[in-house]
């Protein structure tokens, strides 16, 4: 019974079925989604840790893999992320009281001067689905805000996003300031105009060409 609920939940997240009201995907129209099934699973005695590890993380791994293989695209990935978020809402109290442990904390923001958020949002949702607590600082994030967040969460990993060639150069001052505040902080950067070479040149520890690469890097450093 419980295993079946976990499988159903995993399927909802993999295929982007958010809740009962959502018409997507068409083959699951009229059926309960991640929202309702998570509630049902908790009431049936499935532990939040099982929900996270045996349904959500597995599903989001499959989603990331399919995205990197061009089998699904941004809309489908966002729908999966929304389904995962609907499930995660039910788990928040268990994260808050410490009964479920996350892999770590990930601070994320688009660098100052840059208002783009689709890449950041997508990656943030994938990271959350991979079992991390995500602190999303938003867009146009000033150096001080990154530093403040790192000082409040000294063990956190930081992700910095940029879409513009003029704003990608703002990443290095952010990295330098974080290194002064909490030197051991691991930092990953991403965004359309970036490259692995550029990431290295500004002192970043990691570079995510796509969300899946970023998740793999996070898994590696948290192992």
């Amino acid at each position, binding site marked *: 019974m419980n295993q079946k609920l976990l499988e159903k939940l995993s399927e909802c997240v993999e295929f982007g079925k958010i809740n009962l009201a959502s018409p997507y995907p068409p083959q699951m129209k009229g059926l309960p989604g991640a929202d309702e099934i998570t509630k049902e699973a908790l009431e049936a005695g499935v532990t939040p840790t099982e929900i996270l590890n045996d349904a959500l993380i597995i599903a989001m791994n499959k989603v990331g893999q399919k995205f990197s293989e061009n089998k699904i695209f941004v*809309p489908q990935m*966002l729908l999966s992320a929304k389904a995962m978020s609907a499930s995660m809402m039910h788990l928040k109290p268990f994260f808050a009281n410490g009964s479920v442990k996350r892999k770590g904390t990930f601070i994320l923001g688009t660098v100052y001067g840059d208002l783009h958020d689709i890449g950041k949002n997508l990656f943030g949702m994938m990271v959350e689905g991979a079992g991390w607590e995500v602190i999303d600082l938003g867009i146009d994030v000033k150096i001080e805000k990154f530093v403040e967040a790192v000082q409040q969460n000294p063990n956190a990993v930081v992700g910095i996003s940029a879409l513009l060639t003029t704003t990608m150069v703002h990443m290095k001052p952010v990295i330098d300031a974080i290194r002064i505040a909490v030197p051991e902080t691991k930092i990953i950067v991403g965004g359309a105009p970036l490259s692995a070479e550029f990431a290295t040149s500004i002192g970043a520890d990691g570079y995510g060409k796509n969300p899946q690469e970023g998740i793999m890097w996070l898994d590696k450093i948290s192992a």
Partner: protein
Amino acid sequence: MKEFINRILQSSKVTALPVMTHPGIEAIGKTVREAVSSGEIHYKAIKYISEHFDTLACTSIMDLTVEAEAFGAKINFPEHEVPSVSERLVVDLESVELLEVPSLEKGRISQFLLANKLAAENIKNKPVFSGCIGPFSLAGRLYDMSEIMVAIYIEPDIVLQLLSKCTEFLVNYCIALKATGTAGVIIAEPAAGLLSDDDCKEYSSNFVKQIVDSVQDETFTIILHNCGNTGHCTNAMIASGAKALHFGNAINMEDVLKQCPKDIVVMGNLNPVGVFKQGTRESVRKATRKLLDETAGYLNFVISSGCDLPPFVPEENIYAFLETVEEFNTKQYT
């Protein structure tokens, strides 16, 4: 169009059309903010490009906020970067229904039309191409890009209604651009590259085709640009009916050339940042030569940047690119 397209298809030499205006803006001592706000300055930047670089044609500024601004979206204007939309304008069915298709008097549209008119009237040595945003990319700016991606599956009717309004405006705008005397328009549709081939066709190409059917003829060529396509939505781009397709650096040009009909001009795709901006003369030459070698023999190929060149690209890198094309043509065909 025939003249422009035939000139490419019938030439044994590879022609070069980097999409660029920023080198012109910088050379005349103006900022991006000034250039996107003034038709006169915008024109002078295009004029500089036409006089200093041996390219197939010149292009207007790729500012993908002009149309959203006309609809009423709030725009952020950095001094040295193209503007961006700062917040969504429509959020649901009601706001989409209430959204009015703006006149061409709104926002900076009249300044962009002026720039195109001055360029078409005064630049005689090569064709001038106008530019505008594509329907899906415009709708995404008005509805929020993340939200529209989800809405195409959850609330497709809202998206289709918004796309109809965007397309109606773009048709009017392209008719006005055509009237300025330019040789065609580059329709930039990068957001459609985030969709599958089927979705790209349904939510982008079907609407681009309405623009194509309204303005494309023997005197006016549509170049459809989609730098988000990694190879997965080329068929959708072909279905738009545009006589020229322009690709970003994430795609393999040889694969694209094999896939596209021979009577469609195929343009692309050197990395505007990694090659042009961050490269050296030598690395630009190497990358250009490599692409020319890979695409040799395709008469419908025009070598280009994968997107518009960003601000502050070293001029020497652009010259290195053009010199390499010239050398390739000389060695290959003499």
